[in-house]
C-alpha cells in the first residue's frame, strides 16, 4: 500500500516537474534560435529581415572600440560594415552590431547570432574550413608593441625568457611561437586584458596585427610599434559556410567602395599611421 502510493506520487511529481523543466527549456530554445532561418540562402534571409547583424570587436581601437560615453562602437570595421549595409539594403542604419572576441566570433556566426564578422579577422586556410571569406578588405601584418625605450627593436630581440603577450584564439599567438620559439607566450582573453597586462608590466612585448597595435599607440603614446611586420594578415569579412550569394554581394559592395573612393576616405579617417 505504502509502496503503491509512493509510486503514484513519483509519477505525478515526475510528470509535473518534467513539464515545468521542459517548458523552461522550451522557452529558452525559442529565444535562442530566433535568427536561425536555414533552408533559405543567407542573402535572401538578410533581405527578408531587412537588417544585417555584424559581429565586431569592442576593444580594438581604430577598428571596433566601444565608447563608454555613448555605448556606440566605432572604427574602420564599423564604417565598412555600415557602407556594406548601405549598398546591400539601401541604408546604413540597417547595420546592427554585436560585440565579439577572437574566440567567440566563429561560434556566434555559426549559431546565427550574427550574419557576418567584420572583426579584424585574418583569412586563413584553417578558418576557411569553418566559414566563407570575402575578398581582402585590409592588409595587415603581425608586429610588436613595446614601451618606449624597450631593448626590443625587432623580432630578433626576442630571446629565451622574453615574455610575449598575445590573445587567445588569434593567429598571432600561433605565429609568434613559430617565429620566436624561445619566447614565453602568455595568452589572454582579449586585447583589452592583454594591453592592460602589458601596461602593468606583465610582459616585455605584445604581439598582434600592426593595425591593432597602432590603435593602442593612439590610445597611449608611451608605447610604440617596432620592427617590420613578420607575417601577412589579410583581413576578410566572414560569413556562414556555403553562402556564396552573400559573399558575392559583400565582394561587389567592397569593389564599389574601392572604386568610388569611399574606401580610401575611411582608410585615411582611421588608419593615420601608415608606414
Amino acid at each position, binding site marked *: 500500500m*505504502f509502496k503503491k*502510493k*509512493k509510486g*503514484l*506520487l*513519483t509519477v*505525478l*511529481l*515526475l510528470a509535473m*516537474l*518534467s513539464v*515545468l*523543466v521542459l517548458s*523552461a527549456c522550451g522557452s*529558452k530554445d525559442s*529565444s*535562442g*534560435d530566433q535568427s536561425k532561418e536555414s533552408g533559405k540562402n543567407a542573402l535572401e534571409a538578410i533581405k527578408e529581415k531587412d537588417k544585417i547583424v555584424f559581429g565586431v570587436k*569592442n*576593444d580594438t581601437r581604430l577598428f571596433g572600440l*566601444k565608447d*563608454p*560615453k555613448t*555605448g556606440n562602437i566605432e572604427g574602420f570595421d564599423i564604417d565598412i560594415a555600415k557602407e556594406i549595409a548601405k549598398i546591400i539594403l539601401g541604408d546604413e542604419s540597417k547595420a546592427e552590431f554585436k*560585440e*565579439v*572576441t577572437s*574566440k*567567440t566570433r566563429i*561560434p*556566434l556566426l*555559426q*549559431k*546565427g*547570432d550574427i550574419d557576418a564578422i567584420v572583426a579584424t579577422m585574418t583569412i586563413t586556410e584553417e578558418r576557411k574550413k569553418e566559414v566563407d571569406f570575402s575578398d581582402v578588405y585590409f592588409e595587415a601584418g603581425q608586429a610588436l608593441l613595446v614601451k618606449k625605450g624597450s631593448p626590443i627593436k625587432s623580432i630578433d630581440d626576442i630571446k629565451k625568457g622574453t615574455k610575449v603577450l598575445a590573445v587567445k584564439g588569434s593567429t598571432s599567438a600561433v605565429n609568434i611561437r613559430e617565429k620566436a620559439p624561445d619566447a614565453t607566450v602568455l595568452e589572454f*582573453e*582579449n*586585447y*583589452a*586584458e592583454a*594591453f*592592460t597586462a602589458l*601596461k*602593468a608590466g606583465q610582459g616585455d612585448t605584445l604581439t598582434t596585427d600592426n593595425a591593432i597595435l597602432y590603435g593602442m599607440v593612439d*590610445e597611449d603614446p608611451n608605447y610604440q610599434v617596432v620592427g617590420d611586420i613578420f607575417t601577412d594578415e589579410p583581413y576578410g569579412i566572414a560569413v556562414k559556410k556555403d553562402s556564396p550569394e552573400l559573399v558575392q554581394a559583400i565582394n561587389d559592395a567592397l569593389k564599389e567602395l574601392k572604386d568610388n573612393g569611399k574606401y580610401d576616405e575611411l582608410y585615411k579617417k582611421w588608419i593615420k599611421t601608415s608606414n
Partner: protein
Amino acid sequence: MDFAGAYSPDHLKFLLDGFFVTLKVAIISIIASFVIAAFVGIIRYTKIPILSQIFAVIVEIVRNLPLLLIIFFTFFALPEIGIEMSIEMAAIVALTIFESSMISEIIRSGLNSIEKGQIEAGRSSGLTYTQTLWHIVLPQALRRMVPPIVSQFISLLKDTSLAVVIALPELMHNAQVINAQNVNFIIPIFILAAFMYWAVNYTLSIIARKLELKTS
C-alpha cells in the same frame, strides 16, 4: 590614480548597466536552478530507482568541476554538437547547471533533516504519503533550506563575474573595458566595482543570518 576621471558620470552609468546585467543573469539563474534542483532533490530524497542514481552521478560530477570550465564548455564546446546559444543564454545555462547541482544537495539534505518519525506520525494519523510530504515535511524543510539557498545566491552573484571570459557585458566586463583606457583608472574602478558586489552580497548575507537564527 585618477579617481575623478575614473568616476565620471558616463563610467558610473556604464558600470551600473553592467551591474544590472549581473543581477538579471543571477536572478534568472537562481530561479531556474531552484526549479531544477527541487526536481532533482525530491527524486533523490524519495530514492526513485535508476533516476535517483543517474542524478546522483550527474550532481557529483558537476559539483566537482570548476564553474569556469562549465562556462567555457557551454559556450565553446556545445556548438560542436549542435547546441548553440547567445552569450547571455550561455552564461545563464552554465550558471544554472552548476548552481542547480549545488542547490539540489541543499534541498536533499533539508528534506533528510526532517526526522523519519514525523512521516510515520503523519501516516499513522491517516494522511497519505503525498499529504505527509506536502503538509508535514516540505514546509519544515523549506524553512531550513532558505538560509543556505540565500548563501548560494551570494555565490552565484559573485560567480557571474566569471562570464567575463565570454564577454558577457556584466559588471566585471564593463569595469575591464574602462580599465583598458587608462591605467590610472584601474584601482578606483576596481574599488567601486568591489563595493557594488559587496553592498548587495553583504545585505543578502545579513538576511541569510537573520533567517538562520529564526529557524534554529
